[in-house]
Protein backbone atom coordinates (compact mmCIF):
# COMPACT_ATOMS: atom_id res chain seq x y z
CA UNK A 1 0.00 0.00 0.00
CA UNK A 2 1.63 3.22 -1.13
CA UNK A 3 0.52 6.72 -2.03
CA UNK A 4 2.98 8.84 -4.00
CA UNK A 5 2.84 12.43 -5.11
CA UNK A 6 5.33 13.72 -7.64
CA UNK A 7 5.88 17.43 -8.25
CA UNK A 8 2.22 18.05 -7.59
CA UNK A 9 0.86 21.51 -8.34
CA UNK A 10 -2.48 23.23 -8.62
CA UNK A 11 -3.02 26.66 -10.10
CA UNK A 12 -6.21 28.73 -9.94
CA UNK A 13 -5.87 31.43 -12.57
CA UNK A 14 -2.49 33.01 -11.88
CA UNK A 15 -2.32 31.83 -8.28
CA UNK A 16 -0.58 28.59 -7.34
CA UNK A 17 -2.50 26.99 -4.46
CA UNK A 18 0.03 24.16 -4.33
CA UNK A 19 3.44 23.88 -5.95
CA UNK A 20 6.05 21.16 -6.45
CA UNK A 21 4.87 18.87 -3.71
CA UNK A 22 6.43 15.44 -3.57
CA UNK A 23 5.44 12.97 -0.87
CA UNK A 24 5.50 9.24 -0.34
CA UNK A 25 3.04 7.79 2.19
CA UNK A 26 2.97 4.32 3.69
CA UNK A 27 0.63 2.91 6.33
CA UNK A 28 0.42 5.23 9.31
CA UNK A 29 -1.00 8.62 10.04
CA UNK A 30 0.20 11.77 8.36
CA UNK A 31 -0.82 15.01 9.98
CA UNK A 32 -1.19 17.87 7.55
CA UNK A 33 -1.03 21.30 9.13
CA UNK A 34 -0.64 24.82 7.90
CA UNK A 35 -2.29 28.21 8.06
CA UNK A 36 -5.44 29.05 6.12
CA UNK A 37 -4.81 29.07 2.38
CA UNK A 38 -1.73 26.84 2.71
CA UNK A 39 -3.13 24.35 0.18
CA UNK A 40 -4.21 21.55 2.54
CA UNK A 41 -7.75 21.18 1.22
CA UNK A 42 -6.53 21.50 -2.37
CA UNK A 43 -4.10 18.64 -1.76
CA UNK A 44 -6.75 16.47 -0.13
CA UNK A 45 -9.26 17.08 -2.91
CA UNK A 46 -6.64 16.13 -5.49
CA UNK A 47 -5.87 12.88 -3.67
CA UNK A 48 -9.61 12.16 -3.36
CA UNK A 49 -9.85 12.38 -7.19
CA UNK A 50 -12.08 15.44 -6.98
CA UNK A 51 -9.67 18.01 -8.33
CA UNK A 52 -7.41 17.81 -11.33
CA UNK A 53 -3.74 18.66 -10.71
CA UNK A 54 -2.29 21.37 -12.93
CA UNK A 55 1.08 19.63 -12.90
CA UNK A 56 2.58 16.47 -11.47
CA UNK A 57 0.83 13.23 -10.65
CA UNK A 58 -0.52 11.12 -7.81
CA UNK A 59 0.09 7.38 -7.77
CA UNK A 60 -1.84 4.80 -5.76
CA UNK A 61 0.07 1.52 -5.58
CA UNK A 62 2.05 2.63 -8.65
CA UNK A 63 -1.00 3.59 -10.75
CA UNK A 64 -1.66 7.17 -11.76
CA UNK A 65 -5.03 8.05 -10.23
CA UNK A 66 -5.79 10.35 -13.18
CA UNK A 67 -6.26 7.24 -15.29
CA UNK A 68 -7.07 4.73 -12.54
CA UNK A 69 -9.20 6.77 -10.16
CA UNK A 70 -11.63 3.88 -9.78
CA UNK A 71 -8.98 1.71 -8.09
CA UNK A 72 -8.34 4.41 -5.51
CA UNK A 73 -12.01 5.21 -4.91
CA UNK A 74 -12.70 1.55 -4.10
CA UNK A 75 -10.52 1.86 -1.01
CA UNK A 76 -10.98 5.52 -0.22
CA UNK A 77 -12.72 7.07 2.75
CA UNK A 78 -13.03 10.84 2.49
CA UNK A 79 -14.41 13.39 4.88
CA UNK A 80 -14.50 16.82 3.20
CA UNK A 81 -14.17 19.99 5.21
CA UNK A 82 -17.67 21.02 4.19
CA UNK A 83 -20.41 18.71 3.06
CA UNK A 84 -24.18 18.53 2.84
CA UNK A 85 -26.70 15.79 3.43
CA UNK A 86 -30.08 14.89 1.98
CA UNK A 87 -32.77 16.44 4.15
CA UNK A 88 -35.18 13.66 3.29
CA UNK A 89 -33.11 10.94 4.97
CA UNK A 90 -32.42 9.90 8.52
CA UNK A 91 -28.77 9.42 9.53
CA UNK A 92 -29.07 5.65 9.08
CA UNK A 93 -30.68 6.00 5.63
CA UNK A 94 -27.99 8.46 4.52
CA UNK A 95 -25.26 6.05 5.58
CA UNK A 96 -27.00 3.15 3.81
CA UNK A 97 -27.27 5.31 0.71
CA UNK A 98 -23.55 6.08 0.71
CA UNK A 99 -22.77 2.43 1.47
CA UNK A 100 -24.70 1.51 -1.69
CA UNK A 101 -22.76 4.13 -3.67
CA UNK A 102 -19.55 2.61 -2.32
CA UNK A 103 -20.67 -0.73 -3.72
CA UNK A 104 -21.35 -2.51 -0.43
CA UNK A 105 -23.84 -5.38 -0.77
CA UNK A 106 -27.08 -4.80 1.13
CA UNK A 107 -26.55 -7.22 4.03
CA UNK A 108 -22.97 -6.06 4.56
CA UNK A 109 -24.02 -2.43 4.23
CA UNK A 110 -26.63 -2.82 6.96
CA UNK A 111 -24.12 -4.46 9.29
CA UNK A 112 -21.47 -1.91 8.48
CA UNK A 113 -23.79 1.04 8.99
CA UNK A 114 -24.69 -0.31 12.45
CA UNK A 115 -20.96 -0.63 13.23
CA UNK A 116 -20.01 2.91 12.22
CA UNK A 117 -23.06 4.33 14.00
CA UNK A 118 -21.81 2.68 17.18
CA UNK A 119 -18.23 3.78 16.53
CA UNK A 120 -19.29 7.40 16.20
CA UNK A 121 -21.75 7.31 19.07
CA UNK A 122 -24.79 8.08 16.95
CA UNK A 123 -27.08 5.23 18.10
CA UNK A 124 -29.54 7.56 19.85
CA UNK A 125 -30.08 9.80 16.83
CA UNK A 126 -29.48 7.46 13.89
CA UNK A 127 -33.16 7.29 12.96
CA UNK A 128 -33.83 10.99 13.25
CA UNK A 129 -34.15 13.11 10.10
CA UNK A 130 -30.92 14.89 9.20
CA UNK A 131 -32.22 18.48 9.48
CA UNK A 132 -32.61 17.87 13.23
CA UNK A 133 -28.89 17.08 13.66
CA UNK A 134 -26.56 19.48 15.44
CA UNK A 135 -23.22 20.48 13.88
CA UNK A 136 -21.35 17.93 15.99
CA UNK A 137 -23.74 15.12 15.02
CA UNK A 138 -23.35 15.98 11.34
CA UNK A 139 -19.59 15.90 11.73
CA UNK A 140 -19.76 12.48 13.39
CA UNK A 141 -22.00 11.27 10.58
CA UNK A 142 -19.38 12.54 8.12
CA UNK A 143 -16.73 10.55 9.95
CA UNK A 144 -19.02 7.49 9.95
CA UNK A 145 -19.54 7.62 6.17
CA UNK A 146 -15.80 7.84 5.58
CA UNK A 147 -15.32 4.57 7.48
CA UNK A 148 -18.12 2.65 5.76
CA UNK A 149 -15.94 0.75 3.28
CA UNK A 150 -13.13 0.08 5.77
CA UNK A 151 -10.85 2.30 3.67
CA UNK A 152 -7.19 1.61 3.02
CA UNK A 153 -6.74 5.33 2.42
CA UNK A 154 -8.61 7.60 4.82
CA UNK A 155 -8.55 11.34 4.16
CA UNK A 156 -10.09 13.54 6.80
CA UNK A 157 -10.20 17.30 6.41
CA UNK A 158 -10.74 19.15 9.70
CA UNK A 159 -12.57 16.17 11.21
CA UNK A 160 -12.80 17.51 14.75
CA UNK A 161 -14.26 20.90 13.82
CA UNK A 162 -17.58 21.21 15.61
CA UNK A 163 -16.97 18.34 18.02
CA UNK A 164 -17.06 18.92 21.76
CA UNK A 165 -13.82 18.15 23.68
CA UNK A 166 -14.99 14.68 24.78
CA UNK A 167 -16.00 13.73 21.24
CA UNK A 168 -12.71 15.07 19.92
CA UNK A 169 -10.76 12.83 22.28
CA UNK A 170 -12.95 9.85 21.32
CA UNK A 171 -12.39 10.56 17.65
CA UNK A 172 -8.62 10.81 18.12
CA UNK A 173 -8.68 7.47 19.91
CA UNK A 174 -10.71 5.98 17.09
CA UNK A 175 -8.29 7.33 14.46
CA UNK A 176 -5.32 6.01 16.44
CA UNK A 177 -6.91 2.55 16.54
CA UNK A 178 -7.27 2.55 12.75
CA UNK A 179 -3.70 3.36 11.78
CA UNK A 180 -2.43 -0.18 11.32
CA UNK A 181 -2.41 -1.31 7.71
CA UNK A 182 -3.95 1.85 6.30
CA UNK A 183 -2.84 5.34 5.32
CA UNK A 184 -4.58 8.14 7.13
CA UNK A 185 -4.14 11.76 6.11
CA UNK A 186 -5.44 14.12 8.73
CA UNK A 187 -5.66 17.82 7.98
CA UNK A 188 -6.31 20.05 10.92
CA UNK A 189 -5.80 23.42 12.52
CA UNK A 190 -5.73 21.81 15.93
CA UNK A 191 -2.12 20.87 16.59
CA UNK A 192 -3.22 18.83 19.61
CA UNK A 193 -5.03 16.40 17.29
CA UNK A 194 -1.86 15.75 15.31
CA UNK A 195 0.29 15.56 18.41
CA UNK A 196 -1.95 12.87 19.87
CA UNK A 197 -2.13 10.52 16.90
CA UNK A 198 0.14 11.34 13.92
CA UNK A 199 3.48 9.66 13.43
CA UNK A 200 4.41 12.03 10.63
CA UNK A 201 3.84 15.72 10.23
CA UNK A 202 3.79 17.79 7.04
CA UNK A 203 3.56 21.54 7.28
CA UNK A 204 2.30 23.45 4.27
CA UNK A 205 2.52 27.17 3.79
CA UNK A 206 1.51 29.19 0.77
CA UNK A 207 1.27 26.05 -1.31
CA UNK A 208 4.73 24.73 -0.51
CA UNK A 209 5.96 22.07 1.85
CA UNK A 210 7.71 23.69 4.77
CA UNK A 211 8.51 20.59 6.77
CA UNK A 212 8.16 16.83 6.51
CA UNK A 213 9.07 15.45 9.88
CA UNK A 214 7.82 13.63 12.95
CA UNK A 215 6.10 15.49 15.78
CA UNK A 216 8.95 14.47 18.09
CA UNK A 217 11.69 15.69 15.75
CA UNK A 218 9.93 18.98 15.10
CA UNK A 219 9.47 19.45 18.82
CA UNK A 220 13.14 18.65 19.41
CA UNK A 221 14.15 21.34 16.90
CA UNK A 222 12.35 23.89 19.05
CA UNK A 223 14.23 23.06 22.24
CA UNK A 224 16.00 26.18 23.54
CA UNK A 225 13.80 28.50 21.49
CA UNK A 226 10.73 28.65 23.69
CA UNK A 227 10.72 30.96 26.68
CA UNK A 228 8.40 31.50 29.58
CA UNK A 229 8.10 34.79 31.42
CA UNK A 230 5.70 36.27 33.97
CA UNK A 231 5.48 40.02 33.73
CA UNK A 232 3.13 42.99 34.08
CA UNK A 233 0.42 43.79 31.53
CA UNK A 234 2.26 46.66 29.81
CA UNK A 235 5.50 44.67 29.34
CA UNK A 236 3.51 41.67 28.18
CA UNK A 237 1.81 43.75 25.50
CA UNK A 238 5.14 45.22 24.40
CA UNK A 239 6.68 41.73 24.17
CA UNK A 240 3.66 40.50 22.20
CA UNK A 241 4.23 43.10 19.51
CA UNK A 242 7.96 42.28 19.27
CA UNK A 243 8.02 38.47 19.53
CA UNK A 244 5.96 35.51 18.45
CA UNK A 245 3.82 34.60 21.45
CA UNK A 246 2.15 31.18 21.64
CA UNK A 247 0.32 31.74 24.93
CA UNK A 248 -0.82 34.81 26.87
CA UNK A 249 -2.27 33.83 30.25
CA UNK A 250 -3.57 36.22 32.90
CA UNK A 251 -2.50 35.00 36.33
CA UNK A 252 -2.75 36.30 39.89
CA UNK A 253 0.86 37.58 39.89
CA UNK A 254 0.84 39.05 36.40
CA UNK A 255 0.75 37.79 32.83
CA UNK A 256 2.50 34.60 31.78
CA UNK A 257 3.81 34.52 28.21
CA UNK A 258 5.17 31.67 26.11
CA UNK A 259 7.53 33.34 23.68
CA UNK A 260 9.13 31.73 20.64
CA UNK A 261 12.48 33.29 19.93
CA UNK A 262 16.03 32.12 19.20
CA UNK A 263 17.33 34.72 21.70
CA UNK A 264 16.27 35.57 25.25
CA UNK A 265 13.35 38.02 24.84
CA UNK A 266 13.39 39.39 28.39
CA UNK A 267 15.88 39.28 31.26
CA UNK A 268 13.40 37.31 33.40
CA UNK A 269 12.58 34.81 30.64
CA UNK A 270 13.41 31.15 31.23
CA UNK A 271 13.78 28.40 28.64
CA UNK A 272 10.82 26.03 28.84
CA UNK A 273 9.84 22.69 27.27
CA UNK A 274 8.39 23.32 23.79
CA UNK A 275 5.02 21.93 22.78
CA UNK A 276 4.27 20.82 19.23
CA UNK A 277 2.26 24.00 18.80
CA UNK A 278 5.36 26.03 19.71
CA UNK A 279 7.41 24.02 17.21
CA UNK A 280 4.78 24.57 14.52
CA UNK A 281 4.68 28.32 15.15
CA UNK A 282 8.48 28.40 15.07
CA UNK A 283 8.53 26.67 11.67
CA UNK A 284 5.77 28.80 10.18
CA UNK A 285 7.12 32.01 11.72
CA UNK A 286 10.65 31.35 10.44
CA UNK A 287 9.29 31.06 6.94
CA UNK A 288 7.23 34.23 7.32
CA UNK A 289 10.29 36.15 8.52
CA UNK A 290 12.38 34.77 5.63
CA UNK A 291 9.67 35.86 3.21
Amino acid sequence: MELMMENLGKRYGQHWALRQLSLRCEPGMLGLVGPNGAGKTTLMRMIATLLEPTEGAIYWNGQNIRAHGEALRQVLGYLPQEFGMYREFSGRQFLRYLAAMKGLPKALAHRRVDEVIELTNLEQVADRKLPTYSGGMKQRLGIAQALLNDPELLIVDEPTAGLDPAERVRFRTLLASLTSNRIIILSTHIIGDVEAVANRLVILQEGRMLADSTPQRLQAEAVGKVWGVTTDQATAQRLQTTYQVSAFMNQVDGVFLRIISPTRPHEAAQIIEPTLEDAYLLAVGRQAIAA
Partner: protein
Amino acid sequence: MATFPLVSSRQIAMAQRPHPLLAVMAWELRRLRASRATWRLLIVAFGLFLFVVWLIKAPGTTGFNDVTFSVSVTSAEGLVAVLPILSFLLALTLPFVNADGVTRDLKERTHELLMSTSVPSWAYIWGRYLVCLLVSLGLAVLLLVALLLMGLILHHTQADYPLPQLEAVGLIWAVALVPTAILISSASFALGTILQRNSNLVKVGMILGWFMLGLVLPGIPVGGSGHVPSWYLTWEPSNIGMTTLLQTPYNQDATMILTAAASGGSDSFFLAALASLEQQMPNLGPYILPHLVWATLGVALVGWAALTFKRFSNS
Protein backbone atom coordinates in the same frame (compact mmCIF):
# COMPACT_ATOMS: atom_id res chain seq x y z
CA MET B 1 -16.87 5.92 20.34
CA ALA B 2 -15.82 2.30 20.74
CA THR B 3 -12.73 1.12 18.92
CA PHE B 4 -13.41 -2.44 17.79
CA PRO B 5 -12.06 -3.48 14.41
CA LEU B 6 -14.12 -2.90 11.29
CA VAL B 7 -15.02 -5.46 8.64
CA SER B 8 -12.08 -5.83 6.30
CA SER B 9 -11.96 -4.58 2.69
CA ARG B 10 -11.37 -8.13 1.56
CA GLN B 11 -14.80 -9.13 2.85
CA ILE B 12 -16.35 -6.32 0.83
CA ALA B 13 -14.44 -7.33 -2.30
CA MET B 14 -15.51 -10.94 -1.94
CA ALA B 15 -19.17 -10.24 -1.33
CA GLN B 16 -21.38 -9.64 -4.34
CA ARG B 17 -21.60 -5.96 -5.20
CA PRO B 18 -24.98 -4.52 -6.17
CA HIS B 19 -25.42 -3.32 -9.76
CA PRO B 20 -24.39 0.34 -9.60
CA LEU B 21 -27.11 1.60 -11.97
CA LEU B 22 -29.83 -0.18 -10.02
CA ALA B 23 -28.35 1.03 -6.73
CA VAL B 24 -28.39 4.66 -7.92
CA MET B 25 -31.96 4.32 -9.19
CA ALA B 26 -33.27 2.52 -6.13
CA TRP B 27 -31.85 5.11 -3.75
CA GLU B 28 -32.95 8.05 -5.86
CA LEU B 29 -36.48 6.66 -5.87
CA ARG B 30 -36.29 6.18 -2.10
CA ARG B 31 -35.13 9.75 -1.70
CA LEU B 32 -37.97 11.05 -3.87
CA ARG B 33 -40.50 8.95 -1.99
CA ALA B 34 -39.24 10.28 1.33
CA SER B 35 -39.36 13.89 0.12
CA ARG B 36 -42.47 15.93 0.84
CA ALA B 37 -41.54 18.15 -2.13
CA THR B 38 -42.18 15.22 -4.50
CA TRP B 39 -45.71 14.69 -3.23
CA ARG B 40 -46.36 18.43 -3.19
CA LEU B 41 -45.19 18.66 -6.81
CA LEU B 42 -47.45 15.81 -7.89
CA ILE B 43 -50.49 17.28 -6.13
CA VAL B 44 -49.85 20.80 -7.47
CA ALA B 45 -49.19 19.48 -10.99
CA PHE B 46 -52.37 17.39 -10.95
CA GLY B 47 -54.38 20.37 -9.72
CA LEU B 48 -52.85 22.57 -12.41
CA PHE B 49 -53.54 19.99 -15.12
CA LEU B 50 -57.16 19.63 -14.00
CA PHE B 51 -57.61 23.40 -13.94
CA VAL B 52 -56.08 23.90 -17.40
CA VAL B 53 -58.16 21.07 -18.88
CA TRP B 54 -61.27 22.66 -17.37
CA LEU B 55 -60.28 26.02 -18.91
CA ILE B 56 -59.87 24.45 -22.36
CA LYS B 57 -62.80 22.04 -22.08
CA ALA B 58 -64.35 23.35 -25.30
CA PRO B 59 -61.50 24.34 -27.63
CA GLY B 60 -63.78 25.15 -30.61
CA THR B 61 -67.37 26.13 -31.27
CA THR B 62 -69.40 26.21 -34.47
CA GLY B 63 -72.81 27.92 -34.77
CA PHE B 64 -75.77 27.30 -37.09
CA ASN B 65 -79.01 29.25 -36.76
CA ASP B 66 -79.56 29.30 -33.00
CA VAL B 67 -77.66 26.10 -32.40
CA THR B 68 -74.05 26.02 -31.22
CA PHE B 69 -71.78 22.98 -31.23
CA SER B 70 -68.78 22.84 -28.90
CA VAL B 71 -65.90 20.50 -29.51
CA SER B 72 -65.01 18.56 -26.35
CA VAL B 73 -61.39 18.45 -25.24
CA THR B 74 -61.55 14.70 -24.76
CA SER B 75 -62.52 14.02 -28.36
CA ALA B 76 -59.96 13.38 -31.11
CA GLU B 77 -60.54 16.80 -32.69
CA GLY B 78 -60.56 18.61 -29.38
CA LEU B 79 -57.36 17.01 -28.14
CA VAL B 80 -55.57 17.79 -31.42
CA ALA B 81 -56.60 21.43 -31.00
CA VAL B 82 -55.13 21.72 -27.49
CA LEU B 83 -51.93 19.74 -28.05
CA PRO B 84 -49.72 22.89 -28.05
CA ILE B 85 -51.20 23.98 -24.70
CA LEU B 86 -50.68 20.55 -23.13
CA SER B 87 -47.14 20.38 -24.56
CA PHE B 88 -46.43 23.79 -23.11
CA LEU B 89 -47.68 22.58 -19.73
CA LEU B 90 -45.04 19.86 -19.93
CA ALA B 91 -42.40 22.38 -21.04
CA LEU B 92 -43.35 24.52 -18.08
CA THR B 93 -43.08 21.77 -15.45
CA LEU B 94 -40.57 19.16 -16.62
CA PRO B 95 -37.40 21.34 -16.70
CA PHE B 96 -37.92 21.94 -12.99
CA VAL B 97 -38.01 18.19 -12.35
CA ASN B 98 -35.03 17.33 -14.53
CA ALA B 99 -32.48 20.16 -14.78
CA ASP B 100 -31.29 19.64 -11.19
CA GLY B 101 -30.97 15.85 -11.47
CA VAL B 102 -27.20 16.04 -11.01
CA THR B 103 -26.75 19.71 -10.12
CA ARG B 104 -28.70 19.20 -6.90
CA ASP B 105 -25.65 17.50 -5.41
CA LEU B 106 -23.57 20.60 -6.06
CA LYS B 107 -26.22 22.84 -4.50
CA GLU B 108 -26.68 20.59 -1.47
CA ARG B 109 -22.91 20.03 -1.19
CA THR B 110 -23.24 16.25 -1.34
CA HIS B 111 -21.27 16.19 -4.60
CA GLU B 112 -17.85 15.55 -3.01
CA LEU B 113 -19.14 12.75 -0.80
CA LEU B 114 -20.66 11.01 -3.81
CA MET B 115 -17.79 11.60 -6.23
CA SER B 116 -15.27 10.13 -3.81
CA THR B 117 -17.24 6.86 -3.68
CA SER B 118 -16.65 4.08 -6.19
CA VAL B 119 -19.96 4.60 -8.00
CA PRO B 120 -19.11 4.78 -11.73
CA SER B 121 -19.91 8.09 -13.45
CA TRP B 122 -22.08 6.40 -16.08
CA ALA B 123 -24.20 4.71 -13.42
CA TYR B 124 -24.54 7.97 -11.51
CA ILE B 125 -25.68 9.95 -14.57
CA TRP B 126 -27.90 7.31 -16.17
CA GLY B 127 -29.39 6.26 -12.84
CA ARG B 128 -30.34 9.81 -11.99
CA TYR B 129 -31.64 10.39 -15.53
CA LEU B 130 -33.82 7.30 -15.62
CA VAL B 131 -35.46 8.29 -12.35
CA CYS B 132 -36.03 11.85 -13.63
CA LEU B 133 -37.51 10.35 -16.80
CA LEU B 134 -39.75 8.12 -14.73
CA VAL B 135 -41.04 11.15 -12.83
CA SER B 136 -41.53 13.03 -16.12
CA LEU B 137 -43.50 10.16 -17.63
CA GLY B 138 -45.44 9.99 -14.38
CA LEU B 139 -46.40 13.64 -14.87
CA ALA B 140 -47.40 12.90 -18.47
CA VAL B 141 -49.61 10.07 -17.16
CA LEU B 142 -51.03 12.49 -14.61
CA LEU B 143 -51.90 14.83 -17.48
CA LEU B 144 -53.72 11.99 -19.25
CA VAL B 145 -55.57 11.11 -16.05
CA ALA B 146 -56.51 14.78 -15.56
CA LEU B 147 -57.86 14.90 -19.13
CA LEU B 148 -59.98 11.81 -18.74
CA LEU B 149 -61.14 12.65 -15.23
CA MET B 150 -62.21 16.16 -16.22
CA GLY B 151 -63.91 14.69 -19.33
CA LEU B 152 -65.86 12.30 -17.10
CA ILE B 153 -66.79 15.05 -14.64
CA LEU B 154 -67.99 17.27 -17.48
CA HIS B 155 -69.92 14.38 -19.04
CA HIS B 156 -71.77 13.81 -15.77
CA THR B 157 -72.38 17.48 -15.04
CA GLN B 158 -73.18 18.84 -18.52
CA ALA B 159 -75.95 17.18 -20.49
CA ASP B 160 -74.43 17.54 -23.98
CA TYR B 161 -70.78 16.84 -23.07
CA PRO B 162 -69.75 13.50 -24.65
CA LEU B 163 -67.95 10.68 -22.87
CA PRO B 164 -64.16 10.90 -23.27
CA GLN B 165 -62.90 9.00 -26.31
CA LEU B 166 -60.59 6.73 -24.41
CA GLU B 167 -58.90 5.13 -27.40
CA ALA B 168 -58.37 8.35 -29.37
CA VAL B 169 -57.16 10.33 -26.35
CA GLY B 170 -54.77 7.51 -25.39
CA LEU B 171 -53.37 7.23 -28.90
CA ILE B 172 -52.85 10.96 -29.45
CA TRP B 173 -51.30 11.22 -25.98
CA ALA B 174 -48.93 8.35 -26.78
CA VAL B 175 -47.89 9.70 -30.19
CA ALA B 176 -47.64 13.41 -29.38
CA LEU B 177 -47.21 13.94 -25.65
CA VAL B 178 -45.10 11.00 -24.47
CA PRO B 179 -42.22 11.72 -26.90
CA THR B 180 -42.53 15.42 -25.99
CA ALA B 181 -42.15 14.51 -22.31
CA ILE B 182 -39.10 12.37 -23.12
CA LEU B 183 -37.54 15.17 -25.19
CA ILE B 184 -38.08 17.90 -22.59
CA SER B 185 -37.01 15.64 -19.74
CA SER B 186 -33.86 14.44 -21.51
CA ALA B 187 -32.81 17.85 -22.85
CA SER B 188 -33.35 19.55 -19.46
CA PHE B 189 -31.44 16.83 -17.63
CA ALA B 190 -28.57 16.77 -20.13
CA LEU B 191 -28.17 20.55 -20.32
CA GLY B 192 -28.45 20.84 -16.54
CA THR B 193 -25.68 18.25 -16.20
CA ILE B 194 -23.43 19.84 -18.80
CA LEU B 195 -23.99 23.39 -17.51
CA GLN B 196 -23.95 22.42 -13.85
CA ARG B 197 -23.57 25.88 -12.46
CA ASN B 198 -26.28 27.36 -14.68
CA SER B 199 -29.18 24.98 -14.15
CA ASN B 200 -31.64 27.80 -13.49
CA LEU B 201 -30.65 29.30 -16.83
CA VAL B 202 -31.31 25.90 -18.41
CA LYS B 203 -34.86 25.86 -17.00
CA VAL B 204 -35.64 29.33 -18.34
CA GLY B 205 -33.87 28.48 -21.63
CA MET B 206 -35.99 25.37 -22.11
CA ILE B 207 -39.23 27.31 -21.69
CA LEU B 208 -38.07 30.13 -23.98
CA GLY B 209 -36.73 27.59 -26.48
CA TRP B 210 -40.14 25.95 -26.57
CA PHE B 211 -41.71 29.32 -27.43
CA MET B 212 -39.08 29.94 -30.11
CA LEU B 213 -39.63 26.56 -31.79
CA GLY B 214 -43.39 26.68 -31.78
CA LEU B 215 -44.32 30.33 -32.05
CA VAL B 216 -41.42 32.54 -33.15
CA LEU B 217 -39.69 30.40 -35.81
CA PRO B 218 -42.88 29.61 -37.79
CA GLY B 219 -43.56 33.37 -37.93
CA ILE B 220 -40.31 34.02 -39.81
CA PRO B 221 -40.97 33.89 -43.60
CA VAL B 222 -38.78 31.31 -45.31
CA GLY B 223 -37.68 31.44 -48.94
CA GLY B 224 -39.58 34.63 -49.66
CA SER B 225 -42.93 32.80 -49.82
CA GLY B 226 -44.12 34.07 -46.47
CA HIS B 227 -45.26 30.55 -45.59
CA VAL B 228 -43.81 28.11 -43.15
CA PRO B 229 -42.64 25.00 -45.02
CA SER B 230 -44.79 21.98 -44.25
CA TRP B 231 -41.75 19.87 -43.31
CA TYR B 232 -41.10 22.33 -40.49
CA LEU B 233 -44.65 22.00 -39.24
CA THR B 234 -44.34 18.21 -39.34
CA TRP B 235 -40.99 18.13 -37.60
CA GLU B 236 -41.04 20.93 -35.04
CA PRO B 237 -41.40 19.35 -31.59
CA SER B 238 -43.75 21.78 -29.82
CA ASN B 239 -46.83 20.19 -31.52
CA ILE B 240 -48.02 23.60 -32.79
CA GLY B 241 -47.16 22.58 -36.36
CA MET B 242 -48.83 19.19 -35.91
CA THR B 243 -52.00 20.88 -34.67
CA THR B 244 -51.94 23.35 -37.57
CA LEU B 245 -51.71 20.54 -40.12
CA LEU B 246 -54.16 18.18 -38.43
CA GLN B 247 -56.81 20.83 -37.90
CA THR B 248 -57.03 21.65 -41.61
CA PRO B 249 -59.12 18.57 -42.59
CA TYR B 250 -61.37 19.07 -39.54
CA ASN B 251 -61.95 22.70 -40.56
CA GLN B 252 -62.63 21.73 -44.19
CA ASP B 253 -65.15 19.06 -43.15
CA ALA B 254 -66.82 21.44 -40.72
CA THR B 255 -67.21 24.00 -43.52
CA MET B 256 -68.81 21.32 -45.72
CA ILE B 257 -71.22 20.38 -42.92
CA LEU B 258 -72.13 24.03 -42.45
CA THR B 259 -72.72 24.41 -46.20
CA ALA B 260 -74.90 21.30 -46.23
CA ALA B 261 -76.83 22.53 -43.21
CA ALA B 262 -77.34 25.94 -44.81
CA SER B 263 -78.75 24.31 -47.95
CA GLY B 264 -81.65 22.70 -46.15
CA GLY B 265 -80.21 20.55 -43.40
CA SER B 266 -81.81 20.42 -39.98
CA ASP B 267 -80.30 21.43 -36.65
CA SER B 268 -80.11 17.80 -35.60
CA PHE B 269 -78.26 16.92 -38.81
CA PHE B 270 -75.82 19.73 -38.09
CA LEU B 271 -75.19 18.58 -34.51
CA ALA B 272 -74.93 14.88 -35.40
CA ALA B 273 -72.50 15.56 -38.26
CA LEU B 274 -70.22 17.70 -36.12
CA ALA B 275 -70.37 15.17 -33.25
CA SER B 276 -69.33 12.49 -35.67
CA LEU B 277 -66.58 14.68 -37.09
CA GLU B 278 -65.01 15.45 -33.69
CA GLN B 279 -64.65 11.72 -33.05
CA GLN B 280 -62.82 11.04 -36.31
CA MET B 281 -59.30 9.88 -35.66
CA PRO B 282 -56.70 12.09 -37.37
CA ASN B 283 -53.90 10.60 -39.43
CA LEU B 284 -51.07 10.51 -36.91
CA GLY B 285 -48.79 8.45 -39.14
CA PRO B 286 -46.57 11.28 -40.48
CA TYR B 287 -45.86 12.53 -36.95
CA ILE B 288 -44.68 9.29 -35.38
CA LEU B 289 -41.19 9.34 -36.88
CA PRO B 290 -40.45 13.03 -36.13
CA HIS B 291 -41.55 12.59 -32.53
CA LEU B 292 -39.47 9.43 -32.14
CA VAL B 293 -36.45 11.19 -33.67
CA TRP B 294 -36.78 14.09 -31.23
CA ALA B 295 -37.13 11.75 -28.26
CA THR B 296 -34.08 9.78 -29.42
CA LEU B 297 -32.09 13.00 -29.85
CA GLY B 298 -32.97 13.92 -26.27
CA VAL B 299 -31.72 10.58 -24.99
CA ALA B 300 -28.57 10.95 -27.13
CA LEU B 301 -27.96 14.32 -25.48
CA VAL B 302 -28.03 12.56 -22.11
CA GLY B 303 -25.50 10.08 -23.49
CA TRP B 304 -23.27 12.98 -24.45
CA ALA B 305 -23.66 14.52 -21.00
CA ALA B 306 -22.69 11.17 -19.43
CA LEU B 307 -19.63 10.86 -21.68
CA THR B 308 -18.39 14.38 -21.01
CA PHE B 309 -19.18 14.33 -17.28
CA LYS B 310 -16.02 15.12 -15.34
CA ARG B 311 -15.53 13.78 -11.84
CA PHE B 312 -12.37 15.83 -11.69
CA SER B 313 -13.26 19.47 -11.48
CA ASN B 314 -10.90 22.35 -12.14
CA SER B 315 -12.13 24.63 -9.43
